[in-house]
């Protein structure tokens, strides 16, 4: 029982990581039909920014310092993502395939640069002491504390994202843009501003994903983001491309499947099973769980 609950919570935590990356991708894709292959590199970059900030603080990190590091990571992600849209993708407007390819190039270059700057090996992350401990819940069930934080974190982000999309003017414009971009433009609304905003938000989410990755794995390496990115892609397809809620459901489902199979069947089995789930989804529901063309939230 102990192992089962631990693995379940691990699966949910991994799912949260996938969700943070996939939700940003879903927003971008929903609004602009652009798929960003640079999103994994963005996660890694933000992780390294947080890691560097923590590194400056010395051997022990308290909560304020830790949150400052996470905030710096998210801010770096938002800025980097915004710059990418401004400098490269905007020039390729209306050519989704070229935009996709450009993000591939940016991703390759960024990962190589980070490998040069921080080295190819794994760097260990210093966390607040409480995060490395475990809590005993009920009869002999021991849960590492970081799982709680990650899940809480993801719930907050999901709530914030849904509130933003349904309750704010900019959020409503973004959802309207997903439904029918031309109509929104015809109403005299500057969609370009929404594009930039969506990229900044998605970058911030990737930055938070970098923070969650650090909390979960307690380490970072240049390939971290890209390995998460593949699963985020699968989450996108299974959830229905462009749907944030679909991404949340699929991320949770796939995270749990992956963790369970990796533990009960054998290491690596979960990764395979995730792709099998992808194949089954494509056969049974080609549009994904919540896939209705062009819907978010």
């Amino acid at each position: 029982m102990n192992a089962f609950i631990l693995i379940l919570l691990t699966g949910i935590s991994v799912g949260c990581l996938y969700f943070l990356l996939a939700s940003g991708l879903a927003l971008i894709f929903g609004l602009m039909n652009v798929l960003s292959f640079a999103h994994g590199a963005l996660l890694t970059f933000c992780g390294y920014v947080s890691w560097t900030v923590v590194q400056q603080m010395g051997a022990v990190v308290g909560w304020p310092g830790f949150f400052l590091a996470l905030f710096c990571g998210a801010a770096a992600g938002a800025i980097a993502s915004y710059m990418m849209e401004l400098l490269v993708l905007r020039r390729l407007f209306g050519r989704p395939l070229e935009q996709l390819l450009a993000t591939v190039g940016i991703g390759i270059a960024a990962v190589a640069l980070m490998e040069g700057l921080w080295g190819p090996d794994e760097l260990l992350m210093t966390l607040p002491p409480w995060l490395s401990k475990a809590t005993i819940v009920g009869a002999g069930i021991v849960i590492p504390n970081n799982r709680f934080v990650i899940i809480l974190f993801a719930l907050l982000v999901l709530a914030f994202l849904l509130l933003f999309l349904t309750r704010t003017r900019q959020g409503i414009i973004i959802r309207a843009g997903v439904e029918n971009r031309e109509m929104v433009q015809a109403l005299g609304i500057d969609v370009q501003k929404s594009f930039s905003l969506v990229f900044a938000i998605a970058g911030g989410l990737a930055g938070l994903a970098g923070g969650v990755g650090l909390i979960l794995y307690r380490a970072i390496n240049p390939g971290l983001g890209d390995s998460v990115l593949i699963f985020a892609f699968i989450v996108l397809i299974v959830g229905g491309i462009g749907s944030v809620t679909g991404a949340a459901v699929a991320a949770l489902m796939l995270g749990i499947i992956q963790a369970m199979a990796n533990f009960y069947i054998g290491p690596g089995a979960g990764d395979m099973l995730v792709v099998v789930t992808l194949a089954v989804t494509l056969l049974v529901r080609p549009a994904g769980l919540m896939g209705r063309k062009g819907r978010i939230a």
Partner: protein
Amino acid sequence: MTHASSSARRVGYSILFVLAMAAALVPMVSGSLGPVLPGSVNSIGSMTLLSMMMVHAALAITLYLLVGVSGVLTFGHGLYFALGVYISVIVTNTFEINYFASGAIAVVASAIISTFVNGLALKAGIVGYSMITLAFAEIMALAVGRGFLNSGGDTGVTLDDDLIPNAFRGLANTPRLFWLSLALLVVIYASVWFLERRTKFGHVWISIRENELRTEMLGYNVYGYKLVASVIASTMASICGVIYGLVVAGAQPEVAKVLFCLGLVVMVILGGRNVIWGALIGGLLHTYLNLRLPALIGAHEQSSLPRILEIPLSEPDFFIGICFVLVILFLPNGIASLFTRNRRLPLEPG
């Protein structure tokens, strides 16, 4: 679809013919090109480098059949190359049979896997297709990384020396590997050219690239034609893999990595996706930069470079990635467009 006149085309064929003939004579050249090659032209190091470049170029040309001819953007093409390398090496080592016999097994297996993967992935849209193919390639990377089926994990598998066919065993036979790679490149180039220009399939593929909806309306089974293109291209890719396993005498996990798959797309786009020789240029150049750039930089005095320049230059992928983005922004038809008058912009799926 070329706008070149027939005489210009004849000049092009003559250039390619002369190039192939000249390339065949390279192992006889004992001169040196300075730091361009690792040693004199016919040294073991240079021969291996050139062989690897040619195999990768052949692989890029098989991808051209999808990206360039049919307008199908796959990010998982490296999967079939990796399958070709790994299956032929592992089967040879395990059952101690002739390398080319296990190569044949690898090609058949790749064709079957490709039919399954592409049959599924083509059900999704164009963006979904690119993600799903990448996901399947990642499975290969994960399986290899964990060392499933004796794939050796991070160290890879070395082909048993006794099991390498006699004609290609030992350092003295490196020129033969060079000729084998050259032959592969010529055969793949000719086959893809023939498929594109001289078969009904080629015409339908081009029409799918130009306007998928219209092709569908004309009554062609677009899904079926795309599937045929994918399976042919993947099968050819696995043949390249079989030859590559022989050239490097083993299987290394690098060929199964996602970065390798993305690199293949970079080759085709960098060289120019509108013409078959764009993939040839891209494949040769990308592989050369990847394998040789660190050594070229190292040939200069390290200390003379400021640290800020040293990092990007010692990471070939950084240089390649930046070039790739610049090409997409400012030279959408790739390097090949520098040599043609064809300035047609690459088409978006209609």
